[in-house]
């Protein structure tokens, strides 16, 4: 039978002791308590030793009790003063008693019959009795118990129960009781047989030290067997924020799919780029005070170069040369200059289209955007939008559907998609896509449309531009295993520490 060093040592000690208190066994082996306990349990599981456990009630002094053992019980101190002076006014007892002790003292002295109490000049006067005088040298059970407890530290309850009721000690807060397990270890027949055959004790080590390696001493030691199944403490490494990790992944996918990343200089945008350049009329309900943030400071930004502004204005007012009749109202440059936190990534697409771009080309941005909403389980006040466009001479509606479908398969792992007519002020035709996610079922997954010519022509673009956006929040929530959207921007460190990695 394979025995560890500790087990062998314990068994050898038990051979002589047969049955021994656990504490004594620890002393004998000179090992630490945990090691002996582990050895005993292993020996027990191998049928070589037996651990007996018995619970007993013990009594020990409280802090108050310890003090009384030192300076005497309050009634003893009072009696001593009484005997010395024969008669005292209650207040005189303060010389030997604390405030707490003074209150119950009259009752105790009376009960013991050590003093008589009467009122003189409105003051309580105590006078010692004969019994009191004799009591000075008599030992009551409580005095005896106090002495025993002070000497032994703790005793089994049954040892003093004959002398005094435990309740009295507890009521006076002199002593408290405690349950304690007493352990004894006994060698079994089989253990004894094995021990008598003789056991070879080879030094056992738990940690392989550099010294052992250097000295070569590792050859003559035995390595303690570890319980490799023992549970360990969980540690939390530094990790990416899960939602950011998810966004990183989408970013990589889009780059793989041939998209060029767009960025913005500021989170703040002029209404010109957020709305006007997208052919969204100035009286559109989305531009209402309730649906669009405005800034208190700074209030207005600058418009881009005049020719561009003039073209956008003309497109709004009468369609310019776009073949459109326009919205038919007077366009207000002041409104276009108003600043706001960017409300959608399409603003970036518009900026990009007005700059130099590759045709054909594919562009995307993962952009932080802001909407006036109340933060709750289903709404965020700022979030990340994945948007972009594809531009090319020969693009058609079929391609628009093709791009959306590719997103659905690549990003959402969807097998099936469904297209629905939709409406955006800046695209026509417009599509919404639902994708069949393997676990979530049909999910609204994105939208796309061909940018209106009223929008693209003023920006200097004469070829079709397919604008797209993918709705990633539900997918992210699913990936992250959350049903509260606020956890995308989690302020809960425990949750972040425990979150699984996204890759």
């Amino acid at each position: 039978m394979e025995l560890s060093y500790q087990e062998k040592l314990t068994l050898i000690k038990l051979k002589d002791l047969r049955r021994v208190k656990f504490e004594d066994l620890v002393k004998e082996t000179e090992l630490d308590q945990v090691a002996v306990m582990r050895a005993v349990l292993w020996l027990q599981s191998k049928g070589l030793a037996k651990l007996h456990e018995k619970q007993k009630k013990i009594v020990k002094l409280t802090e108050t009790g310890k003090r009384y053992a030192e300076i005497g019980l309050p009634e003893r101190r009072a009696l001593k003063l009484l005997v010395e002076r024969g008669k005292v006014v209650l207040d005189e007892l303060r010389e030997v008693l604390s405030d707490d002790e003074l209150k119950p003292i009259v009752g105790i002295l009376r009960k013991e019959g050590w003093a008589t109490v009467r009122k003189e000049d409105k003051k309580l006067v105590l006078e010692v009795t004969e019994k009191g005088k004799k009591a000075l040298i008599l030992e009551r059970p409580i005095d005896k118990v106090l002495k025993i407890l002070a000497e032994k530290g703790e005793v089994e309850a049954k040892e003093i129960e004959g002398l005094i009721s435990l309740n009295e000690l507890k009521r006076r807060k002199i002593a408290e009781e405690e349950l304690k397990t007493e352990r004894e270890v006994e060698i079994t027949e089989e253990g004894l047989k094995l021990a008598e055959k003789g056991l070879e004790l080879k030094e056992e080590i738990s940690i392989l030290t550099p010294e052992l390696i250097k000295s070569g001493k590792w050859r003559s030691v035995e390595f303690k067997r570890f319980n490799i199944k023992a549970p360990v403490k969980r540690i939390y490494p530094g990790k990416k924020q899960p939602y950011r990790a998810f966004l990183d992944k989408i970013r990589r996918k889009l780059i793989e799919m041939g998209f060029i990343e767009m960025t913005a200089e500021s989170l703040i945008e002029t209404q010109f780029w957020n709305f006007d350049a997208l052919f969204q009329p100035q009286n559109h309900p989305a531009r209402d005070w309730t649906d669009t943030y405005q800034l208190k400071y700074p209030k207005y930004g600058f418009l881009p170069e005049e020719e561009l502004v003039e073209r956008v204005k003309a497109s709004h007012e009468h369609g310019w040369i776009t073949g459109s009749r326009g919205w038919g109202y007077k366009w207000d440059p002041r409104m276009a200059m108003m600043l706001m936190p960017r409300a959608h990534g399409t603003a970036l697409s518009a900026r990009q289209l007005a700059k130099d771009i590759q045709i054909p080309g594919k562009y995307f941005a993962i952009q932080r955007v802001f909407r006036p909403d109340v933060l709750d389980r289903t709404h965020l006040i700022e979030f990340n939008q994945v948007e972009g466009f594809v531009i090319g001479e020969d693009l058609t509606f079929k391609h628009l559907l093709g791009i959306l479908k590719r997103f659905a398969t690549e990003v959402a792992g969807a097998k099936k998609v469904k297209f629905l007519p939709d409406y955006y002020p800046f695209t026509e035709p417009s599509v919404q896509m639902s994708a069949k996610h393997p676990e979530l079922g049909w999910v609204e997954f994105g939208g796309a449309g061909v940018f209106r010519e009223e929008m693209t022509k003023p920006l200097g673009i004469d070829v079709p531009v397919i604008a797209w956006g993918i709705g990633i929040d539900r997918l992210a929530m699913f990936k992250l295993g959350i049903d509260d959207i606020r956890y995308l921007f989690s302020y809960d460190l425990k949750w972040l520490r425990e979150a699984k990695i996204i890759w």
Partner: protein
Amino acid sequence: MPKFDVAKDDLERLIGKSFTVEEWEDLFLYAKCELDDIWEENGKIYFKADAKDTNRPDLWSAEGIARQIKWALGMKKGLPKYQVEKSDIVVYVDEKLKDIRPYGVYAVVENVKLDEEAFKQLIQLQEKIALTFGRKRREVAIGTFDFDKLKPPFYYKAVEPEKIKFIPLNCEEEMTADEILEKHEKGQEYGHLIKGRPYYPLLVDSEGNVLSMPPVINSETHGKVTEKTRNIFIDITGWHLDKIMLALNVLVTALAERGGKIKSVKVVYKDFEIETPDLTPKEFEVELSYIKKLAGVGLSDEQIKELLERMFYEVELKDGKAKLKYPAFRDDIMHARDVLEDVLIAYGYNEIEPEEPKLAVQGKGDDFIEFENAVRELMIGFGLQEVMTFNLTNKEAQFTKMNIPEEEIVEIENPISLRWSALRKWLLPSLMEFLSLNTHEEYPQKIFEVGKATLIDETKETKTVSESKLAVAIAHPRVTFTEVKEILDSVMYHLGIKYELEETEHGSFIPGRVGKIIVKGKEIGIIGEIHPQVLENWGIEMPVAAFEIFLKPLYKPSS
């Protein structure tokens, strides 16, 4: 955007054909609606339709959807035809309404059978048009009346508020105009549209009975519509004639779909007269090649004609062009693109085989974002947990709680909550907030964020610039300046950047344990032990050491 309820039976009665619920799901797409919800009530199946197109109010009722589906399925084709009979009814419009609510248009629809569903649809359509298309009644307000109870001609007048007194809808007592604005539910909701004007608009009949005080409320006693009403008088007011005329066309043709007979009304303005409704079809012309090219599904001229006829167009093909007539209840055709969309909806989006464009292009991530990502990787290597916090915050968090004087930062004029009323100019307050929300969680707590700080820059187009920053905060019982300096030092080493620390004073940090981070003679950040006053302000009972730096000055484009 607008959502409304329709009964399956009612729709099928209007179409004259039954469908399964699954079929309905697809049929709604022809009407640019999504089937949002299905439920049963009193043994009847109801649908909630979510109308996508805010410029197509003709599709916001059972009548409109049924009409669109009849056409889309080819049960009818071309222009829907409606008879409009001239009547001798006249409405006189007061020119004093010019700056108050200048225009009104009117019609009568006779012989309408308003059963329960039809009645519901009529009310619902009015509400949706006034709410969405009419911008909460500002641009379009609609009143309908039981014509048999009224005595024409009618007068749309401007009346001094104090002279107005009538029993408003759903009330029992007479109220003055201002009492209505103050006490009546609709008065409170829409009163602001006329309040403070010298006159309020009022519609009265020849006997001086008040029918309505547009755009706020109708009368309870004169002309209230019930399910028994057979002949309906419609009144629509607003600011733009074309807009209210479109609303009127939508309403009268919807009622005509239920067998109503439309009669026109003469509206007399000071300088001109019009006869409303005017259902004369509108005209448009498109190049067929334009449609074919962008659709990309190989359509022939005839096919385009046939598809357009299913979307209410009368089509004449000529010289590669389609000359179109379309019904007066539509006003959304601005550009050939709008016609193209109709062609594709009639064709069916889901009948088209998606095709990925083959473009010879190569993807590319932004270099600076790649750099940010490399910095994030490095920070994770130190065992720091990445966090992502909001840019929206407030001045108290940015300054007061950080124990520093307030500065001008980007502030929102109309925040939903004061808590989210400004954009952050530095990240450490966000990290402090994060730590303050996790004081019960095991320490050490080591966090970082790479995020934006938005600064004022008067030279920029948006007067602002959002700079990328790295912020780090470490909290545990024995954290010191040295621990964060070790991290900063290692970051700088691994980025190959020489830096110096310069002693400084900063209210957020303990004096003598704070330094400016200097790179090439320029201050790019701050490092130190957070001041106990700041910790107390955030309710953090644990020492914190932190730094924050701009990333742009550390960036060298990778080759």
